[in-house]
């Protein structure tokens, strides 16, 4: 996830671009850059926060320019890898957000034609593709370029030979036009330019636009004009950082169709039935594995617990999940086990300590994290980025689902290496993984039903969550979400364990949330619900769309779309997140900053 902005108008582009980038820095902030046409095309970029670039830019008068704030996915955090990227003659500049899947092949081809590459990014191929066919008309060149690109992108480009004009194109990465007076904007997100205009046009996938001071043309790939309606944004500027959502947590829950998709980008191809990870990771997975240990803290620990079920079900390799703070002192370790550490920030102190311990004992280590260049990525033998973009709400949401997705891909990849998965089976999983963003969106669209159920939970003093199999760790996560933001006491249990103790706590004032999937334990969990009902406790079932039986057992039913075995864990998580959020909201809790908690725990 990166943030991009383009401006053409009457104001000094320097000021507008820097202000906008500061608004976009939630999308990434490991490096930033701008390119401004001030007679010549002038480019400035720096590693670190936007202020670092600001210091480097002289007071240019130019009124056309583009800018970028980066969240590294391909290539390390360096000045060369920061955007904008330039053509060989330094006359064309582009910024890009997304992932170009076929960049290696394109790069080779372009190198053969004499193009010189300065960075390790996938993005740089775009500017050389444009340069390759540029004959004084930027939109024609961009159309030719995007016809060769495979992947997701939002691109904004300028050319020194066409001052006063910026070009944009979008496919699966956000891009929106801000319609001003004698000026126009284009950015990843409305917040970038909301200060200057609240009139916007949303680009759809496959569309391009040509923007000047006083005109906006939207085109398709065949240069046909597309009529666009101007829409009016009515949020307050103060709401804008949250894209109009009342809390970052809700915004981040609603980011999930995008992040769940993003984690797959460049990694799976259902046509070729392939899953690809970076080479060091592939090497770790290919090796003989006797056991896997997953170490993590908090929500990441529960993601790991979900991972245990995914990996064991698909590969039959035993998986042990341990809190990092326990593993580092007491965990067993040997040379044939793989240690997978999960840490969103890459800086969680306990997880880092566990990783170091594991390395010392000769185990192979793999990290799943959101932050490139973080300490964890430097300690481990290999790392996988979850690519969820920054998360600001203290309660982890989109990073949890992305971690599960990474674990899912890992489980599938190990299964492929172990020859545990038939080609049909693999194809089926890959295909349905691609449907997940749509399923998440389905759940989000039904939030009214969740709010209705939340009103029944808001006055409870204690709530239990139960599930079997993979739904067990989900019930733990559901309870964690509820307790950390709503301050209601909540516990998750394996449904079969309820009878062995916790039953004593059930009263008619103890709601129980039961996660029900139509797998081999379906009858069992219905029986559990019956036992709970017999004690008078209200039961909220989270069940599949096609499950028509459940109404006869539970008091309230929340639905998620039916999909094959193991996959529903993502939409179920979203239901649990929304439930916790709305209960906390009804109780008027400080959702983004719960008491006593910090986003990233960097002390042991």
């Amino acid at each position, binding site marked *: 996830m990166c943030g991009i902005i383009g401006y053409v108008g009457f*104001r000094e582009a320097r000021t507008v671009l820097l202000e906008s980038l500061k608004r976009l820095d939630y999308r990434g902030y490991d490096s930033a850059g701008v390119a401004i046409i001030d007679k010549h095309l002038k480019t400035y970029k720096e590693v670190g926060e936007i202020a670092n670039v600001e210091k480097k830019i002289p007071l240019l008068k130019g009124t056309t320019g583009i800018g970028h704030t980066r969240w590294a996915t391909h290539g390390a955090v360096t000045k060369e890898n920061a955007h904008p990227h330039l053509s060989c003659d330094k006359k064309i500049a582009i910024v890009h957000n997304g992932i170009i899947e076929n960049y290696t092949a394109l790069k080779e081809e372009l190198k053969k034609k004499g193009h010189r590459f300065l960075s390790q990014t996938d993005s740089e191929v775009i500017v050389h593709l444009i340069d390759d066919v540029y004959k004084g008309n930027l939109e024609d060149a961009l159309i030719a370029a995007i016809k060769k690109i495979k992947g997701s992108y939002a691109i904004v480009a300028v050319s020194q030979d066409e001052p006063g004009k910026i070009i944009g194109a979008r496919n699966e990465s956000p891009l929106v036009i801000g319609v001003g*007076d*004698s000026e126009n904007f284009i950015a990843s997100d409305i917040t970038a330019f909301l200060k*200057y*205009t*609240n*009139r916007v046009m949303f680009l759809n996938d496959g569309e391009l636009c040509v923007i000047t001071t006083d005109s906006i043309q939207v085109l398709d790939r065949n240069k046909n004009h597309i009529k666009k309606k101007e829409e009016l944004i009515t949020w307050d500027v103060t709401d804008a950082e949250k894209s109009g959502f009342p809390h970052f947590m809700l915004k981040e829950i609603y980011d999930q169709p995008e992040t769940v998709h993003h984690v797959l980008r460049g990694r799976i191809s259902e046509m070729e039935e392939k899953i690809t990870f970076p080479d060091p990771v592939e090497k770790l997975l290919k090796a003989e594995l006797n056991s896997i240990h997953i170490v993590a803290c908090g929500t990441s620990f529960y993601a790991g617990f979900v991972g245990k079920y995914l990996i064991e079900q698909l590969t039959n390799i035993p998986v042990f999940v341990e809190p990092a703070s326990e593993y580092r002192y007491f965990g067993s370790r040997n040379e044939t086990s793989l240690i997978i550490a999960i840490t969103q920030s890459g800086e969680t102190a306990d997880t880092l300590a566990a990783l170091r311990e594991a390395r010392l004992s000769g185990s192979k280590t793999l990290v799943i994290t959101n932050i490139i260049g973080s300490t964890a990525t430097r300690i481990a033998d290999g790392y996988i980025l979850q690519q969820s973009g920054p998360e600001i709400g203290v309660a982890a949401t989109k990073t949890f689902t992305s971690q599960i997705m990474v674990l899912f891909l890992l489980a599938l990849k190990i299964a492929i290496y172990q020859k545990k998965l038939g080609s049909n089976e693999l194809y089926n999983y890959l295909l349905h993984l691609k449907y997940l963003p749509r399923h998440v969106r389905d759940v989000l669209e039904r939030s009214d039903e969740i709010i209705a159920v939340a009103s029944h939970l808001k006055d409870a003093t204690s709530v239990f969550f139960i599930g079997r199999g993979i739904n067990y760790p989900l019930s733990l996560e559901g309870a964690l979400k509820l307790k950390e933001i709503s301050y209601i006491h909540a516990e998750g249990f394996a449904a079969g364990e309820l009878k062995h103790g916790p039953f004593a706590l059930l009263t008619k004032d103890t709601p129980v949330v039961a996660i029900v999937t139509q797998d081999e334990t379906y009858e069992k969990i219905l029986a559990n619900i019956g036992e709970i009902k017999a004690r008078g406790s209200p039961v909220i079932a989270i069940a599949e769309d096609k499950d028509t039986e459940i109404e006869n057992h539970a008091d309230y039913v929340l639905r998620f779309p039916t999909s094959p075995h193991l996959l529903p864990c993502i939409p179920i998580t979203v239901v649990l997140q929304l439930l916790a959020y709305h209960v906390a909201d009804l109780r008027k809790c400080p959702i983004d900053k719960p008491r006593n908690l910090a986003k990233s725990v960097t002390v042991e």
Partner: protein
Amino acid sequence: MKCVILAAGEGKRMHPLTYTRPKVMLPIAGKPILEWNLLNARAAGLKEFIFIVSYKSEMVREYFGDGKPWNVTIKYVNQGKPQGTAHAIGTVEPFVNEFIVLSGDTIFGINDIKHTARKGTKIGLVQIDNPTEYGIVELKGKQVLRIHEKMDDPTSNIINAGIYHFNKHIFEYIRNTEASPRGEFEITDSINMLVTQEHMEGVFLKEWRDVVYPWHLLDANEEVLKKMKTIIQGTVEKNVTITGTIQVGKGTVIRSGSYIEGPVVIGNDSKIGPNCYLRPYITVGSHCHVGNACEVKNSIIMDHSNVPHLNYVGDSIIGQHCNLGAGTTVANLKLDKKNIAVILNGKKIDSKRRKLGMVMGDHVQTGINSAINVGTMIGNHVFIGPGAVVKGEITPKTMML
């Protein structure tokens, strides 16, 4: 000569009316303040306008468009985050040479605009009784020596009226202007630099109507209504009594038994009566209803609002899309007959009026027999339940039961 109108401000002191509209769109006698300035400036011979907008700019743009219905051209510049008057004026640099600047929230007279537009750098001045809230202008003959910020103990009663005539030089001074203690760039600071280098003439204005607090709209409304001529385009039924001047818009019907003492202005497609009593200085908007057994005096009722049955509304302002329940009445005079204090944005202010009812934001509904005390400020989207008694300041989107 271009005419730049400062129309970016929210006008927080105009809450609750400006929660839902920019200050320049507040109506006086059925027209936004900005339109009065546009009309006066046009009458003074100006044809090319630049509106500097920001807060809820879409409302300004939607109402005025490109200016064709007024036979003028309007260009918009979005100030972005408001950072003071100097910053606002600085944004139009690419579009002007010689130009006039008007504060959009003050109504200026035709002749005064004409005079200010004459050759040379100028600033409009007025003499007022209580100048503590304004910038004081120090003069030597007609030449401006300095503008002093708000003074607790003013050295004169000549104040900066908010109308200027500048040339390109001003932008150089704006660029060198430093932020004020409250972090804004003030044009008065730029002018203080200008007057050390160049001549600036002070022009005393003959007409000047500044609106700061919502109740000032009632004064401005009264002033404009006094000059109105009678125009009746709607229908007046039999047995309606009208004294004084009245304007009735197209499609409006005044039903039998209504008793109207002008001056009163009623917009289009409204229903008045039967059997109501309208007293002087009322502006009723379009698509409104003032029904049976209602008495209204010295008030502004904006579009799509109803005072439908058994209501008394005096010295009050009602926003758009409001509905009063049967029997809702508004007090407008304290029993001790003293000045009415108002709570606005949490601060107590002396309105300096003995008579003041309520100021009601948009989309407010009241229940039957609710009572609203003197000087009540009601936010937008407020719901007042049946029989409720309300006073003070009510924040937007609340329920008063």
